[in-house]
């Protein structure tokens, strides 16, 4: 039986503003892992001036930027809050990293006490801390196994949803409660970049799975030759986490 034509549409939101930590790596990973399996993929770089139609996409990526850039984006996102809420409740897969993760919540409180209102999709708040939480990180995720990468954030995030995983080494959401990221319906939020997906192929495929299902397409994923991916993952754990 011939495989039906599969085509995924991915939106990369505001790459000109929110691309502080190499989100291009996440895009490249999703794109290639589709191409290698014969899944067609189109990634649209959506900028602030473009009209964003959430219904056109099967996966939305939101990265992080500097405080200034994040405020600009927050303002733009808030104007479409109802649309976002409907799409997310309908199961829209979203990958939000660093600043993008913070923007999903109710607000981000800056060091001067000012609150930048977020999308309010999640019951999640972030406060700027006195120091930046910087360094290599590894977490254990019930869905995607061990996830490794780098974190660099001054925000301390707290929420009542499921976390993405438990911190094995590093700081995570706030450096205190031992949790990292958030999982809500098909939303994945995390502070882990480095970038996130290349060295964590299980998580990358979980996202593709989720996107295919949301798109109503057959969701099987042919296995790939991931030796380099796992070599990078394992070397990172051996040299940067365990030693």
């Amino acid at each position, binding site marked *: 039986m011939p495989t039906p034509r599969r085509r995924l549409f991915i939106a990369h939101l505001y*790459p*000109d*503003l929110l*691309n*502080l*930590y*190499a989100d*291009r*790596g996440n895009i*490249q*990973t999703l794109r*290639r892992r589709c191409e290698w399996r014969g899944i067609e993929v189109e990634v649209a*770089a959506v*900028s*602030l*001036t473009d009209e964003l139609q959430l219904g056109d996409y099967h996966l939305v990526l939101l990265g992080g930027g*500097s*405080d*200034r*850039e994040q405020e*600009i984006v927050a303002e733009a996102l808030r104007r479409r809050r109802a649309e976002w809420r409907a799409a997310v409740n309908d199961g829209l897969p979203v990958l939000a990293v660093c600043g993008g993760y913070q923007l999903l919540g109710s607000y981000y409180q800056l060091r001067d006490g000012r609150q930048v209102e977020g999308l309010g999709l999640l019951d999640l708040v972030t406060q700027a801390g006195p120091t*930046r939480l*910087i*360094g*290599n990180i590894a977490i254990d995720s019930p869905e995607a196994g061990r996830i490794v990468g*780098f974190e*660099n954030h*001054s925000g301390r995030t707290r929420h009542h949803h499921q976390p993405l995983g438990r911190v094995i080494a590093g700081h995570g959401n706030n450096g205190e409660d031992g949790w990292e990221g958030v999982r809500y319906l098909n939303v994945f939020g995390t502070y882990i*970049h*480095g*970038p996130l997906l*290349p*060295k964590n192929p299980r998580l990358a495929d979980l996202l593709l799975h989720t996107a295919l299902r949301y798109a109503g397409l057959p969701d099987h994923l042919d296995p790939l*030759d991931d030796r*380099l*991916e796992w*070599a*990078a993952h394992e*070397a*990172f754990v051996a*040299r*940067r986490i365990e030693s």
Partner: protein
Amino acid sequence: MLAIWIGKLALWTLRLLGRKGTSLPGQLALRLNPRILEALGRQLTSCIVVTGTNGKTTTTALLAAVLRVRGPVVVNTDGANLQQGLVSALLVHTDWFGRLRTKTALFEVDEATLPRVAAVLPIRWVVVTNLFRDQLDRYGELDLALAKIRDGLQQTDAGLVWNADDPLVCRLGAETRRQGKPQVSFGLHPDHLQPPWRDLVRDGAFCLACGNRLQYDGFFYGQLGVYRCCHCGFARPDPDVVGRLESASLIVQSRHWPSPAAHGNRLAADPAGAGTFADQASIALPVRGLYNAYNALAAISLLAELGFQPDEIQAGWASFQPPLGRMQVFATRPTSVLNLVKNPAGCDSVLRAILAEPGDKVLCVAINDQAADGRDVSWLWDADFELVADLGGVARCVTTGMRAEDMALRLKYAGYPPGHIECVPDLAAGVAQALAAGWSLGGLSVYVLATYTALHPVAQLLAERVVADADPTQAAVHRASVS
């Protein structure tokens, strides 16, 4: 005084050991006397500072080569641009009584270090090369680097030589002008503009004045280009000094070098740049690549301001040796060329320069993640390694260093064939592997990219493999006859 003695002793000891001591002597002296920079700096009569993200070391070296023609200058070399590097350089020129024998200094200064040294040095000029994203885990964010330089500038009456093609640096230029301090801007000729055809990082792509997106007519590299803000009118000014690269020469237009013709007929000058400037000079460049033309232009802009004539600059550069890891050629077998990479914009410019070199080649990328490299290797994904796959001509890639696997993965996802990637984390083994690959493929040149802490070890490894009469073309011929 003890601090000076200890520092000088360390300097001599390191020299006896055959080492350069660009940092350690200063570090020891600073530990004994935290105010030693002030004590030595006070004895200077004038000081020039070069700062910015990329090109500091080369620009400093280019300036030093010309300034030294007129007399001795204290210069920190090899990118030792923190306080200890400055002190180490001063100690070289200090006698055992603590007296500084040389009265002018030229320092490459790290952006974050500038505000901490600006008050204690008699800084006359500050050159700002550019502001790219660099080592985010050290400074937090880009705006911070801008704030640091601004903070440093405000503590001095120094004039500013600044890159008009960089919208971030342009803010500094505008502020300096408002404060009534001398300032000179430089920029490339629009002939070099490239349309924004690649999805690259543009750090300064938003107007710092009003937050709106900047419009670009085109880019030189990174966020450097001809930009304007449609909302508040912020725009690239016409630079005071304009440079156009013509093969290996820079054609420079500067108000300080009016040609005789221009004196008589100023209107004959064609500022739009159809190639017929009446007041232009042609200066042969001792460095390769467009990004180095920028460094040369920055140096020329200041030198013209200081009264140097084109022929003096040319003479100063006649015996110029590029600093460590700036297209540095080693007569290994096959030939190898070493380049420092530290951030996406710099890496892209190096990749473009390398890929423009003729013939097939082997690429060796050495990535470390020590503090001085930046512990976060995300930037590898912002660098345009897709060029390696897209432009072709790279027969083999060897990745090495503490993050060799990450680099291998980067190349795989850039579309480079995984079968042609060899991942060898050990630096010595990696360099050997790259040379062996170049050799076995018929004597292909090996281009090595290395992050900061990998640079010195790799340079050492390559230097050890320099052969007395290595001739890469001979090696290739020899190899061909064997196989």
